[in-house]
């Protein structure tokens, strides 16, 4: 244990500690640019030079391990001269354009210059100029400002997992850029903006919008996935202008993904509703809150009176807060309505009894880093839970193994063993694996693919494997059979099972009773409260209460949902955006979105986190919990007369009571559960596979213009060749109901032959019938590439 002395203060540190780390422990600040505790040490900016006794030259504190007896000075004459010299060199080629630089006011180079530089420069020659690069819609570049610290490059290699930025050229010609003007695609790319210590990489959507010191900072939570990252919402007046990560080592460390960072750009979408709307003579008109609430209550009461409570269906977004979820189910159950649903992407509910108390990770996110063997079951955390994925990436870098069993080969940012099911044979693959693990495969599985046997061996030999069940399981048309097969595999392998919860508050939706058949706390709701065959969109329903959802884009059964809503007697939509509700809603109540209201979420670990409003709601929009509470008043539902959010919270906390964070991943499955696999070939057509992409998954993010990516489809090269299709062709797709859409085709050997991969959540792809349906393909036109 070396004993050292920094600026006269003595300290004992563990072997291998650098001078920088030791100084941090003592609370002594050493200026730096390229050093970052989460990145490898580059020691190329030289800003952290310190004076070490008996050393001939100043040493970089970030790269020098403390050794016994070292006497270090961070402010001796020699240290100060080194700091001044380094800054003078760094500023030689740095433009003094701080007045027009977005980094101004939050710039380490500015701050360190103020604190440590000699105010006079000897440099009178020309400064170098570096050409700017367009690296996509998220990051603005001003490369003349770059000081070549290479933090962004190291971030790409070490954290993002795909190296997209690099340092090209040499000496004074060195510049940071992508490969010949390519765009940066990493889902974590925005973190490079935070890492850049100068104004070389800044946020493009935020460019020239405000000065950092004008912004109000509100600690908040990211509402886009079940990781539940801590964010800092920065606003000016009524407008959210920027979202950055807050440090929370237990959840997101100090990163957030681009969805969490840039989705705020959707807040000002053109279809934002700021006044209540009422359908009069077939058209939606702006009305007062009183009129709208009266109409909503009257419409619902009429359907309830004439068709009974079993004719009403309530669908709430799993992005809603605990308070909203609790009030929503309380309101509907108060009206006698049993059909309460948050699972828009699920169509097979036969195994509801086997669902856990809530979709729990059953461990802490931090512990994921230490896993030695993880089987991802139809899960794609890279897009669905990017910062949970980052923990898995760390486990692989530490020597762990990750297997991804899915209906398509996904692209991960770390080495993953992939196992792809044949089209429609997903549950069968898990069954086969389970049999192999039990060693029953020798006689009946001699012809099994090598990778299946390899996967089974990995599972069998692992000491304590972990299965993570992803949203792809629930989205499968035979979800129940798939779950049962995964449970079999877990049993055979003796594996622990965790769920990767789909949405920001899926956990809260389960815990607080926004599922048919379960009251808050998972208490059974009574005998026959299972969802009907058509789920929330079943033909028996005559009226709907929708909150924060766009079923035409969010639901797997989008075609059926749109049809049911169009045929409904009454539809009440509580939403921040009008969107498709224009076609079917009878009353639209404008609600405040995340950032405009407060509330709490349970993340994937079961961690309860709350956030408060950062800005005032737009126009007359009101927080959803207040809308629900007033509606309850109008509909004479008792026990929901809460005056503030805190009393709602204590009400649900009392109802929920204590619950275990770790829960059994599966309950009992019904007897004789059919697998419901795609029996037989889909004939001429292709079986649909697909998922909501990272930037398409909820109403807010799909309105964020800088994040938008066009819809597309992917086919196995063999399938494409059989249909006479080539890469880049526009393909005409015909769904089972005759609906058609045109999409650009990309070839991808990771898609099973006979299947087609669609990016879901776009109007075109949602019209085709969802995962498991069959589409017929034809070439729509000749692409530009083929003509040339």
């Amino acid at each position: 244990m070396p004993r050292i002395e920094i600026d006269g203060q003595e300290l004992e540190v563990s072997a291998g500690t650098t001078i920088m780390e030791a100084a941090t422990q003592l609370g002594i600040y050493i200026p730096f640019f390229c050093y970052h505790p989460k990145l490898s040490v580059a020691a190329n900016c030289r800003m952290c030079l310190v004076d070490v006794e008996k050393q001939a030259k100043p040493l970089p504190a970030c790269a020098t391990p403390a050794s016994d007896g070292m006497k270090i000075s961070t402010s001796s004459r020699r240290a100060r001269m080194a700091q001044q010299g380094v800054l003078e060199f760094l500023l030689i080629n740095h433009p003094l354009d701080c007045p027009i630089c977005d980094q101004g006011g939050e710039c380490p180079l500015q701050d360190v210059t103020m604190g440590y530089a000699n105010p006079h420069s000897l440099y009178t020659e020309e400064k170098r100029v570096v050409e700017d690069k367009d690296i996509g819609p998220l990051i603005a570049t001003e490369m003349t400002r770059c000081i070549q610290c290479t933090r962004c490059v190291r971030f790409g290699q070490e954290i993002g997992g795909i190296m997209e930025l690099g340092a090209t050229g040499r000496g004074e010609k060195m510049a940071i850029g992508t490969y010949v003007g390519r765009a940066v695609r990493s889902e974590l790319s925005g973190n490079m903006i935070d890492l850049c210590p100068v104004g070389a990489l800044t946020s493009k959507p935020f460019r020239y919008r405000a000065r950092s010191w004008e912004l109000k900072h509100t600690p908040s939570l990211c509402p886009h996935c079940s990781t539940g990252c801590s964010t800092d919402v920065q606003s000016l007046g009524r407008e959210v202008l920027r979202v950055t990560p807050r440090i929370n080592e237990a959840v997101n460390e100090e990163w957030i993904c681009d969805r969490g960072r840039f989705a705020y750009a959707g807040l000002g979408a053109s279809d934002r509703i700021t006044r209540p709307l009422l359908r009069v003579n077939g058209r939606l008109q702006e009305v007062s809150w009183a009129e709208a609430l009266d109409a909503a209550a009257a419409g619902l009461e009429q359907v309830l009176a004439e068709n009974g409570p079993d004719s009403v269906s309530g669908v709430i977004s799993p992005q809603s807060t605990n308070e909203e979820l609790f009030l929503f189910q309380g309101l509907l159950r108060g009206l006698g309505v049993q059909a309460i649903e948050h699972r828009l992407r699920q169509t097979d509910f036969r195994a509801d009894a086997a669902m856990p108390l809530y979709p729990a990770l059953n461990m802490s996110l931090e512990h994921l880093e230490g896993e030695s063997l993880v089987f991802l079951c139809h899960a794609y955390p890279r897009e669905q839970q990017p910062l949970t994925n980052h923990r898995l990436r760390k486990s692989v870098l530490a020597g762990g193994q990750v297997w991804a069993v899915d209906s398509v080969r996904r692209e991960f940012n770390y080495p993953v063993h992939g196992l792809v099911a044949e089209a429609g044979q997903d549950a069968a693959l898990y069954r086969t694996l389970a049999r192999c693990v039990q060693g029953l495969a020798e006689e009946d599985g001699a012809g099994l693919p090598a990778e299946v046997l390899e996967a089974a061996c990995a599972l069998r030999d692992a000491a304590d494997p972990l299965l993570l069940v992803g949203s792809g399981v629930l989205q499968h048309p035979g979800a129940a059979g798939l779950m049962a097969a995964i449970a079999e595999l877990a049993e055979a392998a003796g594996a622990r099972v965790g769920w990767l919860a789909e949405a920001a508050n899926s956990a809260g939706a389960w815990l607080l009773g926004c599922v048919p058949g379960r009251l808050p706390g998972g208490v059974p709701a009574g005998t026959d409260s299972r969802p009907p065959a058509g789920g929330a969109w079943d033909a028996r329903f005559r009226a709907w209460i929708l909150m924060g959802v766009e079923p035409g884009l969010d639901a797997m059964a989008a075609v059926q949902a749109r049809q049911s809503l169009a045929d409904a007697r009454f539809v009440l939509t509580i939403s921040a955006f009008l969107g498709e509700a224009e076609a079917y809603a009878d009353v639209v109540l404008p609600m405040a979105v995340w950032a405009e209201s407060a509330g709490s979420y349970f993340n994937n670990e079961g961690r309860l986190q709350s956030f408060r409003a950062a800005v005032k709601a737009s126009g007359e929009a009101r927080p959803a919990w207040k809308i629900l509470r007033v509606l309850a008043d109008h509909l004479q539902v008792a026990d929901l007369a809460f005056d503030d959010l805190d009393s709602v919270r204590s009400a649900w906390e009392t109802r929920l009571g204590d619950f275990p964070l770790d829960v059994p991943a599966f309950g009992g499955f019904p007897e004789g559960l059919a697998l419901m696999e795609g029996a037989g070939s889909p004939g001429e057509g292709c079986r649909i596979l697909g998922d909501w992409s990272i930037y398409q998954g909820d109403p807010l993010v799909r309105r964020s213009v800088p994040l938008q990516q066009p819809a597309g489809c992917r086919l196995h090269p063999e399938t494409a060749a059989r249909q006479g299709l080539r890469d880049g062709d526009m393909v005409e797709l015909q769904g089972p109901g005759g609906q058609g859409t045109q999409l650009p085709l990309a070839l991808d050997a990771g898609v099973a032959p006979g299947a087609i991969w669609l990016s879901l959540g776009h109007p075109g792809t949602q019209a085709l019938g969802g995962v498991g349906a069959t589409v017929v393909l034809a070439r729509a036109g000749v692409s530009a590439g083929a003509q040339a």
Partner: protein
Amino acid sequence: MLSEASLAEIARERAKYPPERARSALLAALRIAQAEHGYLPETLVEYVAGLLELPAIQAFEVATFYSMYDLRPVGKYKFCVCGSVSCFLNGSDGILAHLQERLGVGLGETTPDGLFTIAEVECLGACKDAPVMQLGDRYVETLTPESLDVLIGQLRGGRDDVR
């Protein structure tokens, strides 16, 4: 994109390093690719990166760092004039200016007849005979405008064994 022979040579270089150290073979792989192709177009750099399963930008970093790699077509003779301290103090600026004037092209450019390219490079390690330039695989030392004129005349005359 590359011949069987070049691919085999790259595979041989690759085999010299442990499996997780593909990056170590990058210098050699780029050299082999350039030897066959004359220069390294962007598509070729990316192709070589793909052979070694490296990110394209990583190969691009290396290809742009070393002046021995050419990202654009170069002339039959590439004058690589050292511009580092010793050569600079001994007049490398004047040598470069003279070359540019005599050949009618700028730094990094190639004469229309495809014979000559002028480049400024970092220290060639031959300071005692500054100013120095590299021409193909040999050094030409103690350069003067006059010695360059003689050299250019000889090269134009088809002699490439000049000293």
